[in-house]
């Protein structure tokens, strides 16, 4: 029982990160129909920039804020210089562009920073908390709490603000949104900035636990992509559920079956879900119009 709770806690922590990456995928996908394989690099950038700013002597909150702002700027640049010029291109082309962007960002980080593993101090110390017979790192609470906070903030943004509704309208029907006077170009920019900022924040939160190096992005992107598809692409609730489920599956597999195959089980579950529900858990079923 104690071990079980331990696995649940670690699953939720990792799952919260996956959920944030999946959420980043979802926001960009809704605004532009693009699956951004560079999403994992935003997480890496968030961690890396914070580490280097912190090591340069800046206080942690300021370092984190700088990292989030710079990463958001890189997200906007990605949209401006790589996605917008290829608007309307086939799925394969867009996949290659964003994977190219991911390789580019990774390559640049390797030059600007280095190839070492880096760590940040935990925000609230390293003394474990004992809950239900298991131990929990305070930093895990930061990660899970951060994810919950972001989801609530986004939910408020999309349902309570005019700008949020404009983003939803654009996601729903780009042309119609333009016709009612929504600046869809701005919505795209905003979506990339938002998505990159969320990725960066996830990076800041998780670095004290997992450490960071220039090449952690690919793995996170694949997991986040899988989580987003598991939940149903384009659905924020699906991103949350998909991310947490994926994290839990991994932790339980690692705990009870084999730590080597924990990632395998994640992909087996995704394949199984897609066999039964081709649109993911929460994805809308589309009727073909002819």
């Amino acid at each position, binding site marked *: 029982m104690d071990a079980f709770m331990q696995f649940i806690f670690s699953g939720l922590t990792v799952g919260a990160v996956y959920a944030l990456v999946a959420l980043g995928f979802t926001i960009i996908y809704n605004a532009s129909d693009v699956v951004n394989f560079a999403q994992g690099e935003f997480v890496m950038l968030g961690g890396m920039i914070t580490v280097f700013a912190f090591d340069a002597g800046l206080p942690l909150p300021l370092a984190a804020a700088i990292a989030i702002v710079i990463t958001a700027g890189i997200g906007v640049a990605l949209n401006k210089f790589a996605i917008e010029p290829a608007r309307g291109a086939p799925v394969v082309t867009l996949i290659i562009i964003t994977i190219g962007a991911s390789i580019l960002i990774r390559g640049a980080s390797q030059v600007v920073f280095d190839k070492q593993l880096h760590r940040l101090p935990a925000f609230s110390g390293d003394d474990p908390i004992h809950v239900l017979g298991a131990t929990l790192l305070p930093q895990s609470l930061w990660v899970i709490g951060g994810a919950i906070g972001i989801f609530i903030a986004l939910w408020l943004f999309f349902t309570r603000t005019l700008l949020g509704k404009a983003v939803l309208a654009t996601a729903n029907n780009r042309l119609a949104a333009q016709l009612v006077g929504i600046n869809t170009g701005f919505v795209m920019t905003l979506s990339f900035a938002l998505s990159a900022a969320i990725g960066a924040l996830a990076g800041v939160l998780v670095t004290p636990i997992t450490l960071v190096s220039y090449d952690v992005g690919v793995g996170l992107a694949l997991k986040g992509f899988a989580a987003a598809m598991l939940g149903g692409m384009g659905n924020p609730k699906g991103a949350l559920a998909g991310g947490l489920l994926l994290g839990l599956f991994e932790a339980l597999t690692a705990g009870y079956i084999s730590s080597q195959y924990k990632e395998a089980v994640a992909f087996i579950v995704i394949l199984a879900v897609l066999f039964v529900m081709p649109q993911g858990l929460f994805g809308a079923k589309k009727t*073909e119009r002819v």
Partner: protein
Amino acid sequence: MAILEINGLGISFGGLRAVNDVSFSVKPGEIVSVIGPNGAGKTTLFNMISGVYLPSDGEVKLNGENVTAKAPHLLAEKGLTRTFQNLQIFQEMTVLENVLAGFHLSVRPSILSDLLSLPGAKRRSAEAREKAMAFLEKVRLANAAEEEAGNLSYGALKRLEIARALAVGPKVLLLDEPAAGCNAVETEEIDELIAELAQSGIAILLVEHDMKMVMRISNHIVVLDHGEKIAEGTPEAVSKNPDVIAAYLGAEEEPAHADG
């Protein structure tokens, strides 16, 4: 003896009843038109008959056999095929290849002989090519045979869809607005072509907004409004039916120019 029988066909999307309890039949060589205001459910009806949508209730019989909700490629094998209101062309293939694709069933390709380009596969391809050219002549597209289909005009693509459907060798042909977007001359050509096809014994089910054309070539007309059949009969009978007139006037739409 009818070759196509529709009995009590209906479909709901969510809570919306798009088509309800529609029945009629088509005999070989007959041209039956389905008319009705925008949103009356004509294309939905076509999609159910051709196996694109799953009907909620009712049945479709082809040659006496129940084929309700059969996959479109199986219906094609049984001799039912269609054209589309929103063009469904193989854009990146040549005009000739589009029609050749229509010969898929008669060519019966075998993967091994196609990969190795064995003589049997070559011969069957050559035969299909000759017949395909004949169909292209028929719709006056023989000159454009080697053009990429995506480069053709809208009217030409409409004719190409008909040629492709003919290549299937249909006994029942569903034409969804074959003359939409065509000028008067083109419309007349399509008109003649349809009459000719019916004469050769093909049963034709037609959705068309050009009322002059419908009245001129149909043997029988089925009128839909709000998903229900409100009338059917000969062109004369239908055009005098007060329910039909009310449906069109109620729709506040000039039928001859309506689209969609």
